[in-house]
């Protein structure tokens, strides 16, 4: 009999299944909780419309906003969130919900000129975008769930990234109702950012900010195009056609058109950009500022953030500066950490007293997880109590590393092509992906760059901020454009890294010879001992506007011939493993409790199961009321009772499906009885019961390891029992197998009869007191069958007992002393063979076992 289902149905087991599932869910839940902490009160979102100042010559402008309020007893402090350029309030919904859950009323809105808000883009002009922000502050002040510091003055923080970050600073500068701000990756002066000039008359007195020479530098062509383009995309769905200016205000659009065409901004255009910049209001910012700037940002580099920080701190306003690993080029690898910092900032200055003031400095180090670089986990954070240079009375300390290299003449090609590639503006960290997740420098174009190197560094050096170098540039044409960068060069040419993929553009007006200080890009990088630094001045970079005529420059080191490194003493912040350890401890506790309970239950069950019936100690097998219903409801055996005594050869007879094999499976402890019990020598049979060691069995055919020889099978099987080798009776058993030399061939090659004999031999290993053989003569030829019969008789003669199940009645008749006849899962007759088939007289007198059997099972 073969069953497809291998499990049994038993009442009362379902709760254990439920328990297991519950444990899995609990474990997942704990981890999820630890990872997301996405719990807290419900948050309600309501739409809001605010009227901003009208456009010149136009009607009123409606600003599309939303307010998120927590389901907590108020009033609460408020937060205003502003989005990045080209975005809308929808980008901020997740952040708003998270903040709101922490007990803030959060307003988000779409800036004018974008999305569903009306009006035109004025680039954070005080009269338009900033006035809109003030209107939103008014709206927050009018709510009864917002804390007011004074009538009409809400307790409010402002946060935003890029375009929204500039708004946060400017709103704080122009409206003193703002109580704290958290601007991210934003500009200081938009003119400086789009026309950068990294040539300074003197070295900077701060880690990164500096005073540039002249009005403007090199046009950041690609970024400017991406920036302007994202504000002039036509709304195709509503049938709009593309226009030059899109939703830009006419004055902003005209300024951009002029600058992009020539690459040189007019003075009035620079003035327009400066009015739209935090630079114009820093002196009035009194709101504590968490200033987050990205290291991987060629649009608004760290020097822009540092300029903001220095400007705000000069008022005595607390400023905390964070230089994280992302930015406009580097994606958002630390979003969780930054959100947490922002929340902490608002908690400190909006909910709590604001003391002690936090003016610390944090920079993400290079040792961020290589694995986490893809998933956003734990960066290495370097920290200092404050960013140097604040106040600027004493310049930030610097140290010098000597550079060497002869004067070098380099070529700027006609048309500015070919040009060096360092970043792909607007594509996030695409270039990092292309160059396989690293900051390896792409090779320089030959003839275009002058290179000056330091000696290998004797000890590891951490650069935080802008290194500088003093050079002389001679040019053979009016005006020179150069791109300066600092490379980290590993020994033996093992790798050249351009940290953060940043270059510093330099523009020199006029011809002849000029000496100047070149401010290299601000970076955070740990340089290993043995590495060199290389300062490179190249003639091209494809992100910038380049001279169209060919020219040559000669570049040489002047002054101390050294690269000046800012000394910012930073210490790594120890990583906080509390969350991980908490989860680990919780899981370990759950596991310990579970294991403990399971052990106790098992011990109790085992104690209950080890009752011994001493009266049956000499009885090889006593079956009482045995029944078995398989999973799926198939009932194989019902109410089977019989007894086998020592020295008997008992035949278990019955047609196919009578339940013989099921009884034998229960006897071996393979399956669990549904009712009744079996006792072997008085011990109740259960899976793994020690008494099973006195039983040898062949049930349902051989179970041999096909890759082993017959001898190895017997050997390893016996050794698996853990019993002494001397008790195995190998020679006797090998003779039962009768395989001759074939015993050392692999079982895979055996015939069915050979396997059968080997399996019988395996059952007889150790000469067990109770030998159970299920159809032992399968596949044997007549002489072997006869031989097997004699072995069984002799075996029983030694005081042991044999149970043989078969449907070959003639065989059984000649082998057995007793028989149990089963049909349809029940015992229909049992007794000695003499009783079942009397030699004379009685109902069955003179008949063969076959006739008796057929009549018993009702086939006749």
């Amino acid at each position, binding site marked *: 009999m073969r069953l497809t289902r291998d499990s049994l149905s038993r009442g009362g087991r379902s709760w254990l299944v439920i328990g297991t599932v519950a444990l899995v869910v609990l474990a997942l839940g704990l981890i999820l909780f630890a990872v997301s902490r996405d719990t807290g009160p419900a948050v309600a979102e309501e739409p809001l419309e605010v009227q901003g100042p009208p456009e010149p010559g136009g009607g009123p402008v409606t600003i599309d906003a939303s307010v998120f309020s927590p389901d907590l007893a108020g009033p609460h402090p408020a937060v205003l969130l502003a989005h990045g350029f080209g975005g809308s309030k929808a980008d901020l919904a997740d952040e708003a919900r998270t903040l709101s859950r922490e007990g803030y009323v959060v307003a988000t809105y779409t800036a004018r000129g974008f999305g569903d808000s009306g009006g035109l883009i004025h680039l954070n002009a005080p009269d338009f975008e900033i006035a809109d922000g003030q209107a939103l502050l008014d709206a927050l002040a009018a709510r009864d769930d917002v804390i007011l510091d004074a009538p009409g003055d809400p307790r409010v923080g402002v946060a935003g990234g890029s375009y929204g970050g500039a708004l946060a600073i400017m709103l704080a500068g122009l409206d003193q109702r703002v109580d704290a701000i958290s601007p991210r990756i934003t500009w200081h002066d938009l003119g400086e950012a789009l026309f950068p000039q990294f040539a300074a008359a003197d070295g900077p007195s701060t880690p990164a900010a500096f005073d540039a020479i002249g009005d403007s530098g090199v046009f950041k062509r690609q970024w400017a195009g991406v920036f302007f383009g994202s504000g002039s995309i036509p709304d195709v769905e509503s049938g709009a056609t593309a226009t030059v200016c899109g939703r830009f205000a006419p004055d902003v659009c005209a300024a951009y058109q002029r600058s992009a065409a020539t690459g040189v901004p007019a003075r009035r255009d620079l003035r327009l950009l400066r009015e739209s910049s935090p630079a114009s209001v820093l002196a009035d910012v009194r709101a504590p500022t968490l200033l987050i700037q990205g290291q991987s940002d060629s649009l608004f580099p760290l020097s822009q953030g540092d300029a903001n920080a220095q400007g705000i701190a000069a008022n005595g306003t607390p400023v905390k500066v964070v230089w994280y690993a992302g930015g406009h080029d580097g994606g958002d690898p630390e979003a969780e950490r930054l959100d947490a910092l922002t929340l902490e900032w608002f908690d400190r200055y909006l909910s709590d007293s604001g003391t002690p003031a936090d003016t610390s400095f944090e920079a993400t180090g290079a040792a961020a997880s290589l694995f986490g670089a893809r*998933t956003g986990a734990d960066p290495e954070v370097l920290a200092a109590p404050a960013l140097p240079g604040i106040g600027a009375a004493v310049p930030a300390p610097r140290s010098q590393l000597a550079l060497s290299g002869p004067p070098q003449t380099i070529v700027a090609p006609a048309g500015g092509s070919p040009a060096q590639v360092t970043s792909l503006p607007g594509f996030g960290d695409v270039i990092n992906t292309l160059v396989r997740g690293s900051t390896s420098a792409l090779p320089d174009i030959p003839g275009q760059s002058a290179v000056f190197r330091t000696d290998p560094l004797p000890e590891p050096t951490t650069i935080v901020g802008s290194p500088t170098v003093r050079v002389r540039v001679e040019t053979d044409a009016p005006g020179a454009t150069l791109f300066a960068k600092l490379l980290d060069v590993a020994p033996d040419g093992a790798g050249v*890294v351009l940290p953060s993929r940043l270059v510093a553009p330099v523009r020199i007006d006029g011809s002849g010879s000029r000496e100047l200080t070149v401010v290299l890009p601000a970076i955070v990088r740990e340089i290993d001992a043995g590495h060199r630094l290389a300062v490179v001045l190249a003639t091209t970079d494809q992100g910038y506007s380049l001279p169209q005529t060919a020219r040559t420059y000669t570049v040489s080191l002047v002054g101390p011939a050294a690269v000046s490194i800012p000394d910012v003493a930073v210490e790594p912040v120890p990583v906080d493993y509390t969350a991980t350890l908490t989860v680990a401890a919780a899981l370990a506790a759950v596991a310990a409790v579970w294991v403990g309970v399971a052990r106790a239950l098992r011990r109790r069950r085992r104690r209950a199961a080890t009752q011994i019936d001493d009266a049956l100690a000499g009885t090889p097998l006593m079956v009482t009321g045995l029944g078995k219903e398989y999973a799926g409801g198939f009932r194989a055996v019902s109410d089977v009772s019989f007894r086998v005594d020592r020295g008997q050869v008992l035949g278990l007879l019955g047609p196919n499906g009578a339940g013989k094999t099921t009884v034998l499976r229960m006897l071996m402890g393979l399956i669990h009885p549904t009712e009744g019990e079996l006792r072997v020598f008085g011990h109740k049979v259960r899976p793994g019961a020690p008494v099973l060691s006195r039983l040898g069995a062949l049930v349902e055919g051989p179970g041999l390891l096909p890759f082993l020889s017959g001898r190895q099978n017997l050997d390893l099987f016996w050794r698996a029992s853990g019993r002494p080798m001397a008790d195995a009776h190998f020679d006797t058993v090998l003779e039962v197998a*009768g395989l001759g030399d074939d015993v050392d061939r692999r079982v895979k090659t055996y015939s069915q009869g050979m396997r059968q004999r080997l399996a019988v031999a395996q059952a007889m290993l150790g000469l067990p007191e109770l030998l159970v053989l299920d159809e032992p003569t399968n596949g044997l030829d007549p002489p072997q069958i006869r031989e097997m019969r004699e072995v069984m008789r002799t075996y029983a003669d030694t005081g042991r007992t044999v149970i043989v199940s078969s449907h070959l009645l003639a065989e059984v008749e000649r082998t057995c002393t007793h028989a149990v006849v089963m049909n349809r899962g029940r015992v229909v007759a049992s007794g000695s063979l003499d009783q079942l088939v009397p030699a004379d007289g009685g109902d069955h007198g003179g008949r063969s076992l076959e006739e008796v059997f057929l009549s018993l099972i009702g086939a006749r």
Partner: protein
Amino acid sequence: MTTHTSRGIHDRLRAAAPPGSSAADGSAPGWSGERALPLRVELLRQWRRRRTKVVLAGLALFPVIMALLFARDRGDDPVSGARLVDLATNGAVNFALFVVFASSTFMLIVVVALFCGDTVASEASWGSLRYLVALPVARSRLLRQKLVVSLILSLSGLLILPLSALVSGGVLFGWGSVRTPAGAVIPTGEALFRLSVVIAYLAVALLVVAAIAFCLGVFTDAPLGAVGGAVMLVIVFSILDQLEDLAVVREVLPTHYLGAWIDAINDPIVWGDMARGVLVSLTYSGVLLAVAWRHFRRKDIVS
């Protein structure tokens, strides 16, 4: 079977001593539950399978073949690049790291799934499982011994691979210091320590693969089903892991942190993701093995 030998059986049987007296628990003389299925025996049973030897030999050979191919294609230029494959010929440890990288996403998973998934299921398919259980070997003990041996074999594979890579890499590329993809240079002694951290972490991280395969092997009688099922699940997990929309769910996928060993060659070592990886792996393994144990202890063994 000749008459001569058959007479021999009867003589021998008659000559055999009558059954000895049994212990209080009803067991045969010399039997003890704690001695059943010794590790040595189970190890021998698995070791004698051709499959075991082929897999372990394959793991020893793979780095040698890779090393020869790399040595043939190696130019005179100094080694540089941002990928482990670019740096493979830099020296023995670099090569071993590359080999671990190349095999950790699939080959090692298949090997672990094979050793752990097939151990119970194949016994069921040969029919030998019921004889072990009736020997008797207590079911918990049977699973424990089989799991331990599977893990020993898996761990051997995990050790053979980098050892072979170290030897072949050392012979062909020398014993120079290690260059990491991040551009750091680590001296050989320190690098060997890092490599052992990598292997130790992988051993724990792959435990979840072992647990998945073992659990499936207890539930099915088809060895290929268990092994293939485990490999398939790992593939499904890694596909899900690519979906950024799943956000937090990705971080609790059983195999999410499998690649976190790369942080062991960071400068300095970053433990955060590896710690979480260990936690995730141990949690899932614990639950899966508990399920396997529970099922096997209650199972009706009918195959």
